[in-house]
């Protein structure tokens, strides 16, 4: 009876927006992947950084009349600064990583309010030539094509740059730092420096994502990043669960993994659109996201604990 009340067309109508949002947040998820998986650092700065990136972009475009494209570069740079603060709190001042990132995140809340002067600042797509906007997905075919093509191309270019970077001496030093710090030090790698560097790159991506998302939704909001880390983790985990086997052992496995993280973000937003369509109250969304992430984070552990029997049988 309830199912009959649902309109399949409305789900279909929600999908383009979900895909667009997923692609934009996928860039943030790449940042989360770098800290969470490569650096093995639970970085909660991102919740603040996303809003900082958004606030910076909107205010620069509106007040300083900056090109929306250029504003994104500044969003990236500002995100890097936020990552640097967390990194220095951790490496130079010895504050545990997760706490250092919470301190930065909290302080960014004030910083973001100061950037915007109030908690929300709109930006009108009719007044500025925004890089992305939700308006574009309801436009004509060419606008749509340009929008999706542009965002996907942008994501792929980022993946290519990151793939190359993590193949350089510096990128390898970051990965070694995250994988085995004792080994890294024994091989002369300055693990503190590379920890800060990785946090900067990660938060730079998050800031960029925030700048894009603010343009997309037509406003920057001081709360726009709340729970971003959970969405980032969800994207990383969905990508790994669905495409992990496909990526493993392949040539350029790392590039495939990053693409699967972005796809993971798209799937996340598709699922959200789906549960909203099932009339789940939007107030419960964050609870739902947290439970999904908790379940998938627990799976490998539970498999290790209880999976022995199954392994013996097979």
């Amino acid at each position: 009876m309830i199912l009959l009340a649902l309109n399949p067309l409305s789900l279909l109508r929600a999908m383009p927006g979900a895909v667009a949002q997923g692609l934009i947040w996928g860039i943030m998820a790449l940042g989360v992947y770098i800290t969470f998986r490569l650096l093995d650092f639970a970085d909660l700065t991102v919740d603040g950084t996303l809003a900082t990136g958004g606030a910076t972009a909107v205010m620069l475009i509106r007040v300083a009349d900056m090109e929306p494209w250029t504003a994104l570069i500044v969003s990236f740079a500002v995100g890097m600064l936020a990552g640097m603060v967390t990194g220095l709190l951790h490496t130079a001042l010895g504050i545990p990583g997760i706490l250092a990132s919470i301190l930065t995140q909290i302080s960014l809340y004030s910083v973001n309010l100061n950037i915007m002067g109030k908690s929300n600042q709109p930006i009108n797509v009719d007044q500025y030539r925004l890089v992305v906007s939700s308006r574009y997905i309801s436009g004509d075919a060419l606008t749509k094509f340009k929008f999706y093509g542009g965002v996907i191309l942008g994501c792929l270019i980022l993946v290519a740059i990151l793939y190359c970077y993590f193949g350089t001496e510096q990128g390898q030093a970051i990965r070694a730092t995250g994988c085995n710090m004792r080994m890294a030090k024994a091989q002369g790698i300055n693990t503190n420096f590379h920890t800060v560097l990785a946090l900067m790159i990660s938060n730079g991506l998050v800031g960029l994502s925030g700048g894009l998302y603010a343009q997309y939704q037509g406003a920057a909001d001081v709360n726009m990043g709340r729970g971003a880390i959970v969405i980032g983790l969800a994207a990383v985990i969905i990508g790994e669960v669905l495409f992990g086997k496909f990526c493993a052992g392949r040539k350029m496995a790392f590039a495939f993994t990053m693409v699967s993280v972005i796809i993971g973000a798209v799937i996340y937003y598709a699922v959200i659109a789906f549960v909203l369509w099932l009339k789940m109250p939007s107030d419960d969304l964050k609870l739902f996201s947290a439970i999904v992430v908790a379940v998938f984070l627990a799976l490998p552990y539970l498999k290790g604990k209880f999976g022995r029997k199954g392994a013996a049988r097979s």
Partner: protein
Amino acid sequence: MSGETRQYALELKEIHKTFNPGTINEKVALDGLNLQLGEGDFVTIIGGNGAGKSTMLNAIAGVWAVDQGSIMIGGVDVTTLPEHKRARFLGRVFQDPMTGTAATMSIEENMAIAARRGRGRSLRWGVTKEERVKYRELLQTLDLGLEDRLTSKVGLLSGGQRQAVTLLMASLQKPELLLLDEHTAALDPKTAAKVLDLSDKIIADSSLTAMMVTHNMKDAITHGNRLIMMHEGKIIYDVRGEEKKSLHVSDLMAKFEEISGGEFANDRMILS
């Protein structure tokens, strides 16, 4: 430095280190340690648990700062240098095979990282084509079939294979000093013997100065040109050359009991 002071490969002067000072867990780990190694010395280090063997190696490597004393490697005072800066002088292999390599990275990447020990990390490619050729040849000498697995993750290798790769990595950039910290203790006897042979070969081929901590007295006697015994953070017995070669395990046991005041050597030492 004036020409009068002889330059040692390693010189430890009056090293003191106390862990957890002022607490009930206070432990004097190194107690006025002095040691000089000549160029090309290969010294084996034995002693009971808590004698300070690994602690000495960690002090040299700079895992933490010592409380007192000075450390010179190849005539350079490294006492205040952080661990990653001392790495320039040192090749290190650890007891746990997991420690010496990065499991999620490939064999060639691990080797490339080691080949850049002591250099800055730039934006150049992490592994070059020429390096790949060189690594393949080097891995071939291990005779473990690893030369065809350059891009395999190190985490897939066995403990013995990982130690062999770590040894190779330690010698890619000739170190002033090679530190082997019970690097065969976690391996089965057959693999341990292989890794020991490889260590001998690498040390001889590049005429390295080396320190090897071991629990196995026989290994301590048959390998290297010098043997030291530690007790309570000090060196209590130091023997080299012909005298060392003619030692028997029973001599070491007697020595150990004499100096430690009749205490029996721990089980691990008796059994090995």
